[in-house]
């Protein structure tokens, strides 16, 4: 009896001893009845079993307490109100007191004096996820049409992301050029709306096609396709302050259908050649997107989207620019070897209708791309570009790129891209783009 007591107390001091204690007890047990009578065994065994059970129960309680402490420490979730936090903490302390008073007591004190939500060390735990992503680009080759600097810290993106309260989450992405800062995105997402709606309010990349939604660091290329640059506002793209509402629409046969409607102020696409420009308050722009998705097999899926955007261009309130887009993506990723091989084939086709003087310009452009994952760290891709220019639809540029990407780890990436462009007016350019990207901190995952 005495030995089992010491065993018990010791087991609480250290984790490792816990199983040792149980194991040694179990090993000792079968030997016991052999040397003593059956009646003795009958009285001894229940004692041991009860003790073992007690040890197990206490062990379970310690583990559940550890879990609660971990949850309190780590939870990025909405902070419980101070009163309940204090209550649970003291409750936890009270529960823990007979078992191990040391680790939990200071925490309860910290909670008790907290003002306005969490205090002390817990406040740090409620900081948003902060991340920084560096994007360095080096370019070799001559391009008189769209010249790029030889070496450039192209973008440094800071991300702040957190759950705001039980009803919403917030995301901020600030992109720093070598000079100047730009709020790339900053919005609140209301996740708890009735009837399955999800709403966003703030500045955001609009849901026009695929590439427009992507931040620079998730592009499979160094640059953006020609059609983006010519028709959809360049690198900044359709990115504006406004309101977005989306909802999944029930469809048969496991087809995913999602509709998005967005209303923006009407300023998009940089300052030099803006895509949309609001000359008056009523010059708002609108974007609509319909996305359908279907799993063909567990490894293969198809994603097709229709997009429409409408806004006023830089000539004034009387001049509309309308964009129509179709995007299609085919993905393949075998689940058993998902970290080694995958394929993404993609195409986006965009029609632009721009009212200007002397007459409307109707331009068309597209890109198609394919990316294959060769191994865990290597990706090989290619892209074909074709696009008219929005203001001069009779001028057409064409291009082709080959891309090789290496990921030393999930958090850094080295990429080389050979880019050939045949500009309108018979200007051929050959360029080599090198890119290094690296990520610090906790950058939340991007939507699929």
């Amino acid at each position, binding site marked *: 009896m005495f030995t089992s007591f010491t065993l018990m107390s010791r087991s609480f001091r250290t984790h490792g001893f816990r199983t040792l204690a149980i194991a040694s007890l*179990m090993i000792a047990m079968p030997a016991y009845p052999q040397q003593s009578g059956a009646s003795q065994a009958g009285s001894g065994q229940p004692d041991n079993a009860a003790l073992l059970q007690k040890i197990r129960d206490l062990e379970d309680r310690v583990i559940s307490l550890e*879990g609660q402490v*971990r949850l309190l420490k780590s939870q*990025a979730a909405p902070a419980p109100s101070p009163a309940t936090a204090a209550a649970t903490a003291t409750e936890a302390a009270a529960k823990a007191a007979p078992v191990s008073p040391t680790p939990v007591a200071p925490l309860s004190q910290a909670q008790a004096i907290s003002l306005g939500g969490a205090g002390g060390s817990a406040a740090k735990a409620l900081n948003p996820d902060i991340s920084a992503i560096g994007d360095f680009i080096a370019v070799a080759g001559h391009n008189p049409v769209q010249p790029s600097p030889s070496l450039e810290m192209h973008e440094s993106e800071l991300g702040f992301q957190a*759950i705001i309260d039980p009803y919403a989450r917030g995301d901020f992405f600030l992109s720093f050029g070598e000079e100047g800062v730009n709020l790339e995105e900053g919005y609140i997402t209301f996740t708890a709306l009735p009837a399955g709606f999800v709403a966003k309010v703030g500045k955001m990349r609009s849901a026009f096609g695929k590439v427009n939604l992507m931040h620079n660091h998730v592009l499979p290329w160094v640059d953006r396709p020609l059609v983006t640059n010519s028709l959809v506002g360049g690198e900044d793209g359709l990115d504006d302050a406004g309101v977005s509402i989306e909802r999944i629409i029930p469809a048969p046969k496991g087809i995913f259908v999602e509709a998005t409607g967005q209303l923006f102020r009407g300023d998009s696409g940089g300052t030099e050649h803006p895509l949309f420009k609001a000359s008056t308050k009523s010059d708002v722009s609108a974007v609509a997107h319909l996305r359908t998705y279907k799993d063909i097999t567990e490894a293969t899926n198809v994603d097709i989207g229709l997009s429409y955007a409408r806004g006023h261009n830089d000539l004034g309130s*009387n001049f509309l620019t309308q964009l129509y887009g179709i995007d299609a993506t085919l993905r393949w990723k075998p689940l058993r070897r998902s970290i080694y091989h995958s394929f993404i084939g993609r195409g986006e086709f965009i029609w632009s209708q721009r009212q200007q003087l002397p007459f409307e310009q109707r331009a068309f452009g597209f890109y198609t791309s394919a990316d294959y994952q060769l191994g865990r760290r290597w990706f090989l891709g290619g892209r074909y570009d074709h696009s008219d220019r929005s203001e001069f639809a009779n001028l057409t540029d064409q291009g082709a790129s080959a891309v090789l990407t290496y990921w030393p780890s999930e958090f850094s990436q080295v990429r080389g891209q050979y880019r050939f462009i045949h500009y309108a007016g018979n200007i051929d350019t050959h360029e080599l783009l090198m890119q290094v990207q690296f990520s610090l901190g906790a950058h*939340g995952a991007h939507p699929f």
Partner: protein
Amino acid sequence: MNAIQNSFRLFRPMRNSQAQISRRLKKPLKKSGMQIPRGLSPTRNDKANGPIGTSKLVPSPIWVQSRFFQRPVLILGLALWIVFSPAVAEAKKLNVVTSTTDMAALTQEVGGDKISVESIAKGYQDPHFVEAKPSFLLKLRQADLLISVGLQLEIGWLPPLITQSGNPKIQVGAPGYLDASQFAEILEIPTGTVTRAMGDVHPLGNPHYWLDPDNGRRIARGIAQKLGDMDPNDSAYFQQQFLDFDKRLSAAEQKWDQEMQPYHGRKVVTYHRSFPNFAKHFDLDVIGYVEPRPGIPPTPSHTIELIQLMKRESCKVVLVEPYFDLKTPQSIGQATGAQVIVYLPSVGGEKQVTNYFQLFDYDIALLIKAFNATK
């Protein structure tokens, strides 16, 4: 000039007063410095303007032509469809979605026929790298309860799914979100500073905690409690199911412990750090990993070190998760004479392993075979 005139045929004259036109065109005229003939204006808001002589394409009344009429009808129809299509199908059973198959298996044990449960990830898939496919949103939007493994195992894919699901019930912090790690004993919690130089470390501890029957019991108890909270009418049923599971698990545990008894203290190498809870429960000694650091693929120098270590410690078993490439483990096996076995970290890793018990049955049988072969 002729060309320009032709081009202007596209535009229709407006009835607006000259003043209006010039006011409207002030900006563009200034900007572009272009001259427009009076009475002409780019086509826009032409709904109010009567048909013009040049147009022969106006068979229908003006109001039907109107863009501003046609669009709202379409948009309104679409909006009505969107709003009134059912958001969540009414189901009598509690609809549970779990991130991994193990959580689904444990939920099934305690939920019995009063719930329906589905896992997002497959058992043979690397749970760190699941794609956040939209088809999963279809499951999540109808879920009453989402059970995650937690400890940032799913950080790369579950948060965007939850946000996009449009389902308030399963948002983090809502009653329908359950992080199962709170119930389990967690190992390898890093102390001191955590940096990415350590690889893809999980700052909150090793998330592969379910491969310990004791943790399985604790998780099941937590889930049973949660199901009871969500569906108080069946609370007693869930408790009964848990007690039944507990009994069966204890019996199985005894059997497993006995089977593994002769192999206590045996040394093994695993590919990823997904084995600590199993090793602790069954008293195995994990001396090294094929990955130099968690999430970093094997490097030649580390592989050589590992081979030397295995020879020194006479470790004869390499355990590989089903989603990793076998090339490096096999070359290690050849160099050291070790057995390379593909063990299952999760239910559903192989077709015949459909529940939590079979998972241990499978892995233990595999281990014993390997240990015996390399005595």
